[in-house]
């Protein structure tokens, strides 16, 4: 990081924040407000880093084009743009190493801002996330080559990326725990045209599975079930002496991006799925 702005921002981060930036992972317990402050500072650093990385990329590209032109005209004149391209390239590479996936500010931070409203200020929230690319070797479930057809071969790879989980206690005493897993299927299609040209194409399909357990206190809520027509969740329950544990599952199809991210609405709708199917203990009517 030779550029002063991201370097200065990076130097202001704590050890825990630097570990998150470099590893793109975290497993810790903090209050929602502490999480927001900590991850918010990382997001601010990442925004500056993204902006500078983009500039470095453009600078590198422009310098390469300029050096090619100079080489064609007078080779000695190409030395300067080549050196500039190398400097920009190194800067780009350094910033790429500390790039945090945008899902931090697109999904995690908005979700934390909403969860903070539903939790007491001192309540601790455990979060575990891994924002690295989901198609890592350790996530590979199966890989197989489907029977080749004429001029066409197809390879299928399946990955399971459990990238985000957490647990905490809401202000009403209900406990909530969740895990979000991306089930990724990649089809690599290789085609040979009649002229002998070989074309390759990759097709992605991501099924994002949100599993959630909500422990509703029986002295506050009575489980009555139903509501399946509204939110199409898979719901099952288990009753204890003090709590009704509701297991909810939502599956979201994602076609545009392999990156682990989600709209917080899916999360809130899943959480609300437990509350929709409950009523208040001793509820006489809707209002007192």
């Amino acid at each position, binding site marked *: 990081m030779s550029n002063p702005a991201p370097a200065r921002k990076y130097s202001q981060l704590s050890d825990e924040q630097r570990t998150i930036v470099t590893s793109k992972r975290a497993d810790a317990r903090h209050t929602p407000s502490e999480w927001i402050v900590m991850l918010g500072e990382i997001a601010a650093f990442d925004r500056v880093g993204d902006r500078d990385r983009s500039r470095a990329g453009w600078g590198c590209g422009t310098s390469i084009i300029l050096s090619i032109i100079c080489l064609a005209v007078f080779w000695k004149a190409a030395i300067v743009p080549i050196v500039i391209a190398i400097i920009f390239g190194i800067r780009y590479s350094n910033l790429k190493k500390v790039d945090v996936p945008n899902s931090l500010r697109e999904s995690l931070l908005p979700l934390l801002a909403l969860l903070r409203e*539903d939790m007491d200020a001192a309540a601790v929230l455990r979060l575990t996330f891994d924002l690295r690319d989901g198609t890592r070797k350790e996530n590979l479930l199966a890989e197989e080559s489907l029977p080749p057809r004429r001029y066409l071969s197809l390879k299928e790879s399946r990955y399971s990326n459990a990238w985000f989980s957490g647990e905490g206690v809401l202000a009403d005493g209900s406990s909530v725990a969740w895990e979000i897993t991306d089930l990724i299927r990649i089809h690599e299609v290789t085609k040979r045209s009649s002229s002998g040209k070989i074309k390759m194409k990759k097709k992605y399909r991501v099924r994002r599975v949100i599993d959630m357990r909500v422990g509703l206190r029986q002295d506050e809520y009575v489980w009555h079930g139903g509501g399946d027509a509204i939110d199409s969740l898979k719901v099952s329950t288990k009753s204890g002496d003090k709590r009704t544990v509701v297991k909810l599952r939502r599956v979201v199809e994602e076609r545009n991006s392999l990156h682990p991210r989600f709209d917080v609405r899916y999360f809130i709708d899943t959480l609300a799925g437990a509350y929709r199917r409950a009523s208040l203990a001793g509820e006489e009517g809707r209002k007192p």
Partner: protein
Amino acid sequence: MSKCAVKRGIVALRDCGNDATDTCTICSRPICREHTRIRGTQVMCVECYARQEQQDAASAGSRAGAGAPKGAVPKGAVPKGTAAKGTDYDENAWQDDSWPYYYRHAWYTTSFYHPFYNGIYYDTYYDDYDLRAFADSTQRDLDDDSTAGGFYDS
């Protein structure tokens, strides 16, 4: 001293609990410093602020959608994360402390969710949300000894 009338929470609402320092000029409810917003010269609660911003966003959006000339809708007239986009939000929305209030208003009105209310200061401001409230919340709060616990604590 009266307490702030704004309710915290998304799936279940509860009382703010802070002492009121001002009064909302729109709904006349007492509000604490944390839930006070200034809009122009008006002091208002964060919920009225969110609703007003959403109305402005919706009307700005409809003006823009009705073929308003380019530049007729001033830049920034449509607040980020407001009802003009429903429950859509951008990556900077979380930085605004009012955003959860925009979001929950838009979410309640589009998802047909009726939030629970487990506080003691019920007020009719939330009638639009058709709250599900405890019948005897005062007594329940006195009896309640602990809110902590795991999933299988029985």
